[in-house]
């Protein structure tokens, strides 16, 4: 509070022109309404000329009515189409980062515009950039920021963002000035202050460009968060610094004395910390608001966006740092709103933000490229341009190395040299620098165009050149990549144990370490913050261990439901025997080693024929023996019967049954709470079930760890589910799945075969356990997890899975083998060569 009032005092008395903060507001409101386009108005394409009408017109050409929004929409469309084109070829995007590609598309577009108009009619205006394009990008970036990682590295990030930025701004400015004085640039009308201003705007490391590149290369998480966090905060700092220097420039050299400089420094801190604080305030507001939005779920997600934007504008209004404000708003509220809001709203928010951020990102880059055709800005000064590029690279490296050296003195895990190098190299300049340069005031800075042109060149240089070389560099330096960590309960639980252990050890040592702070914050948060910001429901379930558990369960449930839907039937629920899961898996593996050729064949089949469940046919052990029309009929009837039975027994409906209704304010989805609850419980129960059954498994299970690897190699063969549903032969699938169900039943009961004769569908043992005694929970639904691989008959796939990894494994091979194994057992000594007819018959059936 003290800072605040003093800040206002300073700002108002010192007449620092910080109040038009981020942007020079020298553009009319009209232009700001035109999103990012200023149109040349001299083209009067159409328009309704006369105001008096003589007769009633039926339709009128009203171009001018819609001109502005129309052009905006068209440009958005054009930019997004550019992205579409840029993303077409993955070979190119893997070499050139997307941001660079978009800039190049911008060049091309610019060329077209130039060819048509011979002038630049559209360009990126700072106002539009700062008010309509940037906020959502920053909000998205901060909202999706890995929270914990960010706060645990906050110190390092701040050091880099604040000190590093000041260092860059100062040194680049001074070094350029020195060179200018030394005569390296010829005759320019620039003083030290202007150079410093230029240095300040050049020190903005662009988050968009950086994220785009670093996400592509998957560097390790600490490096990622350092670069990402730095670039995000650095923008805010840059803008503040820019404003301070801008004020100095307008104040003029002679008037600057020690007092003004001190005021400048104070205003720097007030503006940045005030902005951050305001962001936190808004985060609190948002979190509290989401506590009560349960009844307006539809617009729940919108609140966050609007309030986030308001935090940006409010900071702007108070001449505080808007970027920092929205950054901290996003970072801080993330945890609480995720807990408070409905899961659907969270997803919605995430996607909406992504759409907006990606959209404006695309536009920014395209327009950056497009700006190249502006003739006015190209004031060439070789010395100035080359020296700028040289200095920003050199000083960036120096700053990064020095600050990291400082940080490493006290870091638990020091940042190693390659990481530091990549950090330095990752100093890509982007749209923020350009936006700031574009908002320079030509009256105060006569060489504005030179600066703008240079900025553009620097942006092109860093984004395109450094962007392209980043990936090879990372590979060449062998920078630690991000390890793909799965969501596991073990990991989460042990993390918690470790935290407890560390705090305990610190207590025993009697020192206040990092964990002391973490723990006390957690305690404080538990006790007060959560009470204030979270709904009571959310509070109950906010524990991370439970959270992971919940997520895993939800995933399973979703897979389960999706699978059911993609099958178009609930046949997959009929999962007869869990006990043999393990056994068959093992057997399959053993066979897999012996007969790889066959499996290859199978996968080819799967590739060749999309929408017919080939494998389910092939899997069928019966066709050569007992395939006749009557039996098929009978089976399909039985199958229908069982389907009805199942529908009665199980709560779920496939999406088909769900009548599409429209309601203005409520989502209507098939999963009502009860259903979700039911699914949830079932997944839990079935997990237990399968687990137990796995234990009873016949084989003692040797190396299970190798399964996932094996299966994942097959995974790409999985087909998207859709075509199947509408397939005219859908019935066929039904029949065969009935067949295969019975077969799998045999397979399932194999270990204790004496209960059911392995008869070829004569009395269809499949339904016996079902009708007789199956309580709902006997069928572990989530076991049927093949999801992607819809060509496999559901009940079979269900059996093939590992009880503990509900992933989309490809079960073709194991399953095939499993049937085979039953065959071989049922027919005592069936030889391998009946493989061939079987397959033939399989392909034959597909043509039925």
């Amino acid at each position: 509070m003290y800072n605040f009032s003093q800040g206002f005092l300073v700002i108002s008395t010192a007449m620092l022109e910080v109040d038009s903060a981020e942007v020079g507001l020298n553009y009319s409101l009209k232009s700001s309404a035109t999103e990012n386009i200023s149109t040349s108005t001299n083209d009067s394409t159409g328009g309704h000329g006369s105001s008096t009408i003589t007769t009633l017109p039926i339709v009128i050409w009203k171009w001018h009515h819609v001109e502005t929004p129309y052009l905006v929409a068209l440009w958005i469309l054009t930019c997004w189409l550019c992205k579409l084109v840029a993303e077409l070829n993955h070979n190119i995007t893997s070499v050139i980062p997307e941001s660079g590609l978009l800039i190049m598309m911008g060049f091309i577009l610019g060329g077209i515009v130039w060819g048509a108009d011979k002038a630049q009619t559209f360009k990126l205006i700072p106002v539009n950039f700062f008010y309509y394009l940037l906020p959502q990008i920053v909000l998205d970036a901060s909202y999706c920021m890995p929270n914990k990682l960010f706060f645990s590295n906050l110190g390092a990030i701040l050091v880099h963002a604040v000190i590093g930025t000041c260092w860059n701004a100062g040194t680049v400015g001074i070094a350029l000035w020195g060179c200018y004085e030394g005569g390296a640039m010829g005759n320019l009308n620039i003083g030290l202050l202007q150079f410093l201003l230029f240095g300040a705007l050049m020190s903005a490391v662009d988050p968009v460009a950086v994220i785009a590149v670093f996400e592509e290369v998957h560097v390790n998480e600490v490096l990622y968060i350092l670069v990402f966090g730095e670039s995000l905060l650095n923008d805010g700092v840059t803008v503040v610094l820019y404003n301070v220097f801008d004020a100095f420039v307008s104040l003029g050299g002679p008037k600057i004395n020690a007092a003004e400089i001190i005021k400048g420094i104070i205003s720097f801190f007030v503006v940045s910390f005030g902005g951050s604080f305001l962001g936190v305030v808004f985060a609190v507001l948002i979190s509290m608001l989401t506590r009560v939005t349960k009844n307006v779920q539809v617009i729940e997600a919108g609140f966050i966006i609007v309030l986030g934007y308001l935090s940006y504008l409010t900071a702007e209004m108070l001449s505080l740092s808007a970027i920092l404000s929205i950054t901290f708003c996003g970072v801080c509220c993330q945890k609480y709103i995720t807990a408070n809001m409905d899961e659907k709203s969270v997803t919605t928010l995430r996607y909406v933000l992504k759409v907006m951020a990606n959209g404006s990102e695309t536009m920014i880059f395209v327009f950056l490229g497009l700006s190249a055709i502006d003739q006015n800005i190209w004031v060439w000064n070789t010395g100035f341009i080359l020296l700028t590029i040289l200095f920003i690279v050199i000083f960036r490296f120096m700053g990064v190395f020095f600050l990291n050296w400082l940080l490493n003195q006290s870091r638990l895990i020091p940042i190693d040299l390659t990481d530091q190098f990549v950090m330095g190299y990752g100093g890509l300049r982007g749209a923020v620098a350009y936006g700031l340069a574009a908002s320079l005031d030509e009256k105060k800075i006569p060489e504005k165009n030179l600066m703008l042109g240079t900025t553009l060149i620097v942006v092109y240089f860093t984004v395109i050149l450094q962007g392209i070389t980043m990936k090879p560099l990372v590979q060449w330096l062998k920078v630690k990549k991000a390890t793909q960590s799965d969501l596991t309960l073990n990991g989460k639980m042990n993390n918690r144990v470790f935290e407890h252990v560390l705090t305990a050890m610190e207590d025993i040592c009697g020192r206040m370490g990092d964990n002391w702070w973490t723990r006390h914050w957690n305690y404080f948060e538990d006790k007060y913050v959560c009470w204030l910001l979270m709904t009571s429901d959310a509070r109950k379930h906010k524990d991370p261990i439970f959270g992971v558990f919940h997520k895993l369960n939800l995933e399973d449930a979703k897979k389960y439901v999706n699978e059911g839907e993609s099958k178009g039937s609930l046949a997959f629920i009929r999962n007869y025997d869990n006990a043999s899961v393990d056994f068959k898996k093992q057997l399959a593996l053993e066979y897999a080693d012996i007969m790889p050729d066959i499996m290859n064949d199978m996968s080819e089949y799967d590739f060749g024929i999309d929408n017919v469940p080939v494998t389910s046919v092939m899997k069928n052990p019966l066709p050569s023996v007992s395939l006749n029309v009557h039996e098929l009929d009978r089976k399909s009837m039985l199958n229908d019967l069982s389907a009805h039975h199942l529908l009665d027994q199980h709560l779920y409906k496939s999406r088909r049954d769900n009548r599409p209704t429209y309601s203005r304010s409520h989502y209507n989805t098939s999963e009502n709470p009860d259903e979700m609850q039911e699914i949830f419980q079932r997944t839990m129960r079935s997990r237990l079930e399968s687990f137990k059954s796995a234990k009873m498994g016949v084989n003692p299970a040797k190396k299970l760890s190798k399964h996932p690897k094996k299966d994942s190699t097959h995974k790409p063969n999985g087909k998207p589910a859709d075509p199947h549903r509408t397939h005219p032969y859908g019935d066929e699938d039904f029949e065969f799945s009935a067949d295969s169900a019975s077969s799998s039943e045999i397979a399932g009961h194999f270990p204790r075969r004496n209960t059911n004769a392995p008869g070829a569908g004569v009395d269809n043992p499949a339904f016996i356990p079902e009708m007789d005694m199956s309580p709902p929970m006997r069928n572990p639904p989530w076991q049927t997890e093949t999801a992607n691989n819809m060509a496999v008959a559901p009940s079979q796939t269900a059996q093939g899975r590992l009880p503990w990894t509900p992933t989309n494994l490809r079960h073709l091979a194991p399953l095939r083998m499993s049937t085979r194994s039953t065959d071989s057992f049922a027919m005592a000594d069936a030889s391998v060569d009946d493989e061939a007819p079987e397959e033939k018959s399989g392909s034959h059936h597909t043509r039925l």
Partner: protein
Amino acid sequence: MGSTNSTLLKIPNVEVLMQETGFSPAHIIRLHDRFKALDKEGRGHLCPHDFGAIKELAMNPIGDRIIGAFFSPGKETVDFHTFVKILAHFRPVDKDRPKEPNSPEPINSRSNKLKFAFQLYDQDKDGKISRDELLQVLRAMLGMQVTDEQLESIADRTIQEADLDRDDTISFEEFRKSLEKINIDHKMSIRFLR
């Protein structure tokens, strides 16, 4: 400097201790001071209730287990050497130190850190984390937030995740495998012990 030496001299076999744990003299002295502060009765060793007197430790949900880790089975006391050796588990791994080929595995190696964590679960010291043992820890950590039923399914799922040989328990090998992707050096190190 003089006081440093004199404190060090008071500790028997300090050279060996430093060799084994890799602690610097400054660390040893600091830990020794702390040890003496904890040892209120001045017996030269610590009892469980000495640890229990640490206020924050009492708040720690698995505090008693951690205290238990200081005492080898059957023993009621812990002397300074053991005390330091236990704490040495949490010394960050130093990369600069040249590795002597013949030297024994340092106390702060990854697997030793893991072993320490493992024994927090494995209270009956049979080399396996059983469902009950896991359940106890989970209950301590999750507390009132979840129901017993949920707790049990969490425990089951956790075992399922790690259990490779299907014996319904987690052996150390399985424990290590399940944490393969976690940076133990990072998670089980205290900065000021560097």
